[in-house]
Every structure is written in structure tokens, then in C-alpha cells.
């Protein structure tokens, strides 16, 4: 038991408390300082994670907590992604009476996502999912005077409550059948010859469903477009990206936990992946609202992440592919939402017509983000998809890669429905931007898209050095 192992989370919680305290003492126009506090906390968390790379992978806190490459990478992504969201927020929340508290919620939600990524115990995982969910509902409904925002929050909450309940039932069933919620103990039980009883299978299935909710995967995905459309733009950026990172890593870990000869969860994940990307794409095709379109595209992108999860343990490339894909996706999706935020939430696709001639750099960032989501080289999203396809084919799921390709073509269609008018059309009404902070967020996130593509080598080699802590051996 070492407190040092959870410094990244502690940094977030401390910063959240500090931001909350500060918010209750400073005047409304100075609430932006809380953003600074949040950034400091996130920075500290980020560097604490970087330092952890030197440690050998290990279990901590009586086996509830795991520190391996996957967990550290996920937490780096979570901290970095949240920092980008914080950067774009102050201008947006300036007039909100509860401006400062928002950062506390963001930080706590990020801590929940980190818990998911590092959980080595089903109860710990549930705590992470719940913390991330409850803060998420509030973030989605933060503009409580605005009905669309409240509606997004309520929808998120209803689906979330359902999914969280299923998760708890699933965890209970696994605990009941195997006598422990700790991953190492579960692994030992199964190696000692536990049987694949129907209850255990149902338990595993429900647990996966509970995590799939946080990823926005079928069949518990339908909150994502509503949140993307109705939540405050920074919340939408956060909720479509950060919880997904924690959940994807947690899901991969759960899939690894169940041995192939007992309960192979990979075919189930593969089917979910196929459904998620196809459904998300089909629904995105004719959206006339950019944020809703991004929400559906986020659903379909979860499907690609699930492709990497479906081959986890079958090829050494699966985990690096998952992390790199999430990285590329996070950069692109955050850029897109940063653009929406920077343009003061303008959301109808036709309102983006002619943006290239009015705000060329903002339009450039948006086009870059959408091309990266398609997977046009040499952007970050391309390397992400490339590694996912490579892993899928290597792991024997070639048909899934082929389906992903078909989906990519379909996705190009709706991304081009935004890109085309933004570049080709004559400009409409005047374009107003939000603040310097949101501009910086656009710039940083879009620079990341390019850097991830061109400098992929710098990240891929270290990523391939990391893998999951193999729980059975540790136990």
C-alpha cells in the first residue's frame, strides 16, 4: 500500500477541492482563476504519471489498483484531454453563476475516468464508473436554465442509471460465482477450474454492458448524441472523450481477465464493435446539426476502439493500437468541439458554410479534425486506424477490419457534408469568436493531430514496450 501510487488521482482531487474553495470566495469575474488551479492540478497529475513509467508494473492497495503501462497511458490521456477542455472553458462559462465549481466537477470526473483505467477490482471499477457518471450528469446539465442542456443531462442520467445498475448486478454475479471481486483472485479461481456457469456468463456480459455505457457503445450509446448536442460545448468535448478513454482500457482489462477456454468475451466485443460503428455511422449520415453529428460520429469511433479491444491478447499490437487510436480520436474530437466552443456554440452545418473565407485557421482546424476522424494520412487519426486495422488482421478479425473500412467510407460522406460547404460555399452571417482561451485550445488540439501523425514513431515505440500486467501471474 503506497500513497505514491495514486498521486495522479490525489492531485486531481486536491485541485478540485482547491478550485471549489476558491470559487466560493472570489467574486464572479475572477472565477476564471479556478481554471488555473485546475490546470495546475492536471499538470501535476500528468507529471506524476510520467514519473511512474520507471516503476515496474505492479498491483497496489491490496490488489484493487493496478499500475501498468496501459493504466499510465490512459491517465496521461485523461489528464491531457481534460486540460484541453479546461483551456476552452473560461470564455464559455464566464457568464455562468457557478463558473468556478465547473472545474471541480471536471477534475472529479477525470479522477473517475482514471479510476476506471487503473481498477484491478470490480468494485473499484464500479466506483470509477459511478464517480465518472454522476459528475458527468451534472456536467451535461450544467446550464440548468436551458432546457436542451437539462434534457441531455436527464437522458444521460436515465441511461446511466440503468447501465450502472446492470453493472452492479454483473459485478454481484461474478462475486457470487467466484467469491472475489479482485482481478488476481478471479484469475486464480479460473485457473483452478471454475466452470463457465450461466450466471458467470451473464455477470460478465452485464459488466461489459456497464462499461460499454461509458464508451458510448451499442446498446447503451444513445446518450452520446444528445449530450454532444445539448450539453455545454466544453462538457460535450469532455464527455465524448475522457470517460471513453478510461472505459476502453477498463474493458480491455476485463476481457483479458476471462480466459479464452472458459468464457471468450472477444466475439461479443467484436459484435458490439460491428454494431457500434455501423449504427453510429448510419445515424450520423443525415444530421443537420454539427454537434449531433459529432455525437453520432463519437459513437461510431467507439466501435473502432472496440475493434482493438476485440483482439486484445491475441496480438501484441492490440494494446498499443487501442491507446494510439484513443489518442488520435481524443485530439480530433477535442479539436472539433474546441472549434464549436470557439465559434460560440454555432452548431447548424449550414452555419459553417463559407467559414474558410471568414476564419481560415479555425476552418482549417475543423477540416483537419474531421479528416483525422476519417483517417486521412498523415494525421493522428490515420495512424490510430492503421494500427487498429493492423491489430485486427493480425488477431484474426479480418472481417471486422473490412467492416471498419466500409464504415470509414460511409463516415467520409457525412464529414464531407461539413467540410464541403465550409470550404467551397460563400460566407453567410458574421462569425464571432469566444475568447483567447478557446482559440488556444483549437490551436493546441489541432497541432496535436498533426504531431501525432508525423511523429507517430516517437510514441509507437514506447507504447509497444508496455502491456497489461498479466494478473494471473501476479496473483
Amino acid at each position, binding site marked *: 500500500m503506497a500513497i505514491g501510487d495514486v498521486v495522479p488521482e490525489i492531485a486531481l482531487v486536491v485541485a478540485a477541492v482547491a478550485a471549489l474553495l476558491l470559487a466560493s470566495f472570489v467574486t464572479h469575474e475572477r472565477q476564471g482563476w479556478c481554471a488555473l488551479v485546475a490546470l495546475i492540478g492536471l499538470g501535476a497529475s500528468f507529471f506524476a504519471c510520467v514519473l511512474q513509467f520507471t516503476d515496474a508494473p505492479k498491483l497496489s492497495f491490496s490488489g484493487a489498483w493496478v499500475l501498468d503501462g496501459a493504466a499510465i497511458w490512459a491517465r496521461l490521456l485523461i489528464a491531457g484531454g481534460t486540460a484541453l477542455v479546461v483551456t476552452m472553458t473560461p470564455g464559455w462559462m464566464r457568464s455562468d453563476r457557478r463558473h468556478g465549481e465547473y472545474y471541480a466537477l471536471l477534475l472529479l470526473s477525470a479522477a473517475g475516468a482514471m479510476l476506471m483505467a487503473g481498477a484491478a477490482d470490480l468494485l473499484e471499477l464500479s466506483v470509477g464508473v459511478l464517480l465518472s457518471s454522476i459528475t458527468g450528469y451534472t456536467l451535461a446539465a450544467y446550464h440548468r436554465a436551458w432546457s436542451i442542456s437539462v434534457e441531455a443531462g436527464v437522458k444521460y442520467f436515465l441511461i446511466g442509471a440503468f447501465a450502472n445498475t446492470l453493472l452492479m448486478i454483473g459485478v454481484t454475479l461474478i462475486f457470487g460465482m467466484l467469491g472475489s471481486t479482485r482481478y488476481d483472485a478471479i484469475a486464480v479461481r479460473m485457473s483452478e477450474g471454475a466452470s463457465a456457469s450461466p450466471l458467470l456468463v451473464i455477470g460478465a456480459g452485464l459488466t461489459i454492458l456497464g462499461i460499454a455505457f461509458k464508451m458510448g457503445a451499442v446498446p447503451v450509446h444513445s446518450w452520446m448524441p444528445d449530450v454532444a448536442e445539448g450539453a455545454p460545448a466544453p462538457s460535450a468535448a469532455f464527455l465524448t472523450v475522457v470517460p471513453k478513454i478510461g472505459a476502453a482500457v477498463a474493458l480491455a482489462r476485463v476481457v483479458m481477465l476471462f480466459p479464452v477456454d472458459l468464457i471468450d468475451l472477444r466475439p461479443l466485443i467484436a459484435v458490439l464493435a460491428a454494431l457500434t460503428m455501423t449504427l453510429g455511422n448510419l445515424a450520423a449520415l443525415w444530421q443537420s446539426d454539427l454537434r449531433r453529428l459529432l455525437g453520432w460520429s463519437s459513437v461510431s469511433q467507439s466501435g473502432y476502439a472496440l475493434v482493438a479491444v476485440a483482439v486484445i491478447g491475441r496480438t501484441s499490437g492490440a494494446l498499443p493500437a487501442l491507446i494510439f487510436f484513443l489518442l488520435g480520436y481524443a485530439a480530433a474530437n477535442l479539436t472539433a468541439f474546441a472549434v464549436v466552443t470557439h465559434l460560440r456554440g454555432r452548431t447548424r452545418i449550414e452555419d459553417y458554410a463559407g467559414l474558410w473565407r471568414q476564419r481560415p485557421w479555425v476552418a482549417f482546424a475543423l477540416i483537419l479534425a474531421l479528416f483525422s476522424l476519417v483517417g486521412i*494520412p498523415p494525421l493522428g487519426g490515420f495512424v490510430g486506424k492503421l494500427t487498429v486495422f493492423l491489430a485486427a488482421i493480425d488477431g484474426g478479425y479480418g472481417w471486422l477490419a473490412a467492416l471498419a*473500412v466500409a464504415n470509414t467510407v460511409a463516415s*467520409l*460522406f457525412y464529414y*464531407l457534408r461539413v467540410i464541403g460547404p465550409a470550404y467551397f460555399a460563400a460566407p453567410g452571417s458574421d462569425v464571432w469568436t469566444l475568447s483567447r482561451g478557446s482559440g488556444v485550445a483549437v490551436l493546441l488540439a489541432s497541432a496535436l493531430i498533426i504531431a501525432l501523425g508525423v511523429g507517430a514513431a516517437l510514441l509507437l515505440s514506447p507504447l*509497444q514496450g508496455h502491456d497489461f500486467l498479466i494478473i494471473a501471474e501476479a496473483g
Partner: protein
Amino acid sequence: MSAGAARLSAAAVSAVPLALLVAVWLGFDTRAGAPMFQAVEDLPWIPTLGVGWRLGVDGIALVVATMSALLFLAAAAWPIELGERARQYYAWILFLEGVSLGVFLALDLLLFYVFFDLSLVGMYFLIGRWGHGDSQAAALKFFLYTLAGSLAILLAVLGLVLADGGPLTFDMRELIARQPLADGGLRAGLVLLGFVFGFGIKTPLFPVHTWLPPAHVQAPAPASAILAGVLLKMGTYGLIRIPLAMMSETFARYAIWIGIIALVSILWGALVALGQKDMKRRIAYTSVNHMGYTVLGIAAAGSLIVGHEAARQLALTGAVVEMVAHGLITGSLFLMTGAFWQRTKEYSLASYGGLAGLAPKLTAAFILAAFASLGLPGLAGFVAEFQIFAGTFAVHPWLAGLALIGILLTAALFLTMVRSIFFGKRKLPDGTSAFADLRGAEITVLTVLLALVVLIGVWPAWLLDPITASARALIGGAG
């Protein structure tokens, strides 16, 4: 910077790669025993995946890339009214030139794919922004079709590099040596299918050619010239470079089917072209026909029928010459349709007649290009088609025999087009009274392109040498 200055600087910039490629050509070693790939540049990019910045040429890449560089120079120099945003237009042309040459020069499969995809992006913006009519829809269709093809290629590439369980590498030279899918089987068939589908869309082959006519018709003329002259070559070049070279046994097993698809494209392209009432659409469909010849030659070359090495080499050489010839000829034809559009905003054949008296220089250039395109001896098209047919007759005689019908049809369609535009009763589109002949810059560009067409027709040796050297390396046997 004014539009004129932008055009001049774009032309100047695009002359640089041409000059460099000519320099490589002059130093290219075609003797037996010389390395297949020369002027190689090799830097690591993503070493963990075996991806590198690897560039270099063999004879085939060299001639296709040089032709492309020339055509880009011609497209940049071709005068065109752009109104506002001329600088962006030329920036996209230069971007497209960079990535297109990258496709032909890449010796790394992933780098090849990167450039291949980026060429789609460049063309998408060129067609959508500077085209006319419903150009955005045409650009969208172009992008969707060709991205579908390129992703199929990506999957096939991944299937190929993962095939033999050796260390992961995307190095083309290594893969040609390794022949990763030599054992055949379902996987090899699927990988080949991915390549043929992807490159077939780009080439374009029947029945996945339908993106081509709208893209051609709505695009600005220099972009059409590039599309036909350069981008379509990526399909046939890819077929030679990847499936033919890297999985020759699997390619041979299905070569007859590829040949049959090529035959259908030849006949279908020519028949549909014959029915077009719009000059740009008609020329666009002849591309389907001509690229069909190229694929026919490639299919014959890849047939692996023992004892026919010389004929297969001949077919491959012919296919590459056809790529160069089609680039120069159809490039000129599309540029000339641009001259029509600049003057009258009309492509309909029925609107024109008797222009020979009004615009003799345009008439002469158009007729020369049309004759070259229909394969008149003494011009570049003939050299190409003769070799393709001579080679294919030895390997698949009935395929070659049927494909000859295509030559008759192209003759008919070009002759009727020339007759209706330039001869007969003088006629101009409604609302226009004058029709100016070609001007200085237009004459210069067309003279260079068409002089090469004639030069290849009467003295092809300089072009054949580097191609034959590579064909020999690919196919083997005496030559």
C-alpha cells in the same frame, strides 16, 4: 500577387521536379545487372512498424513520374480564368503534384498509401472549388469512390505485410524479394481482390468507373488533364508495382479474370464514349477504354505462362508506354476542352461545327491528339497499343482479338467528334459570335506535349529502354 504572377511562379516551381527527374533519367542505368531501383533515398519514419521514408525509381516509375511532372507543368502553365483565389488554386495544384509524384516514387507501401490518399484530398478541393456546374457533388463522388478503393488497398497492404510472419516491413524492395503470399490460398486471393478492387476504381475499370465522367466534366480543364493524365495512372502503376511484383503467382492465377475485366472496360468505355453528346464526357469515357488497354497488357504480362517471357515483357512495356502516351494525349485533349470552355462555356458537340476555318491551330492540335488517341501509326498511342496487342496475342489470343473491336470504336468516335466540331457547316453556341484561336501560352504547352507524342511515335527507343530494363527485372527471361 496577381493571378498571372501566381501562375508563373507555380509553373516555375513545378519545373523543378521535372528537371530533377530528367537528371535522374539521364543517369539511369539500363544495363543488365544494374539495380532495379535507383536514386534510392531511405530514412526511418515509424521503425516499430517497419515504415520508412523510402523513395526511388525503377524504369517504370521513372517514365511515369517524368510524364506526370511534365503534365503538372503544363497544367500550371495553362492559362485559365480563375477570378478570385488564384493563389489557392495554384497552391492546390502544387500540393497535388507533390503527392502524386510521391505515389510514383514511393518504395514503401505505407508511404505509397499516404501519398495516394493525399492526392484524393487535393483533387477533391480542386474539383469542388474551381469546377463548374454541380462540382461539389462530383467532388464528393470522386472522393467517396476513390477512398473506398484506397481503403481496400490499405487492408490488402496490411494483409500482405502480415502474411509471412517475418519481421514487419513495408519496404517494397524487401516485399518483392520475399513474395509473402506465395503459397496462395484464400488469404492471397482476398489480398489480390483488395488490390484489384482498389486500383480498379482508380484506373478506372468497369463497373467501378462511374465516378469518372462527372469528376472530369465538372473539373476545371487543367485538373481534368491531371486527373486523366496522372491520377488514373496511379491505378495501373499500383497494379504493376504491388500485386504483379509482390504476389506474382497469385496474380497469375487470376490474370485471365483481370484481362476479361479489362476487355469489358475497353469495349464498354468505347461504346459509351461513342454515345456521348458532350466532348468532355466523350474524352472521359475514352479514358476508360484506354486504361483498359493498359490493364489488358498488365494482365497478359502477369500471366506466368511458360515460354512466353518475351511476349509478356512486350505486353508490360506496352502497358507502361500506354500510360505515358495516354497521359500526354488525353492531357492535351482535356486542356483543349478547357480552351473551348474559356471561349464559350459550352461542351456540347451539337453546338459546334466548322471551326477549322476559325481556329486552324486548335484544329490541327486537336486532330493530332485525336489521331494519336485512336492509335494512328507514327504517334505515341500506336507504339503502346501495338506492343500490348502483340504481347497479349501470344498469351491470350482471343482476349486480344476481341479487344481489337475497341480500336475500331475509338477510331469511329474520335473521327465523328473531329468532324462535327471542326468541319461541316460553321456553327457556334448560342450567344457567341467569335471564337479565338489558340494563344501564345496555350500553343507553347500543346506544342511541347504533342511534340513528345510524335517523338514517341517515330523514335520510341529512348522511352522503351528504361521500361524494358524494369520489365526484364520483373518478368525475367531474355529481352
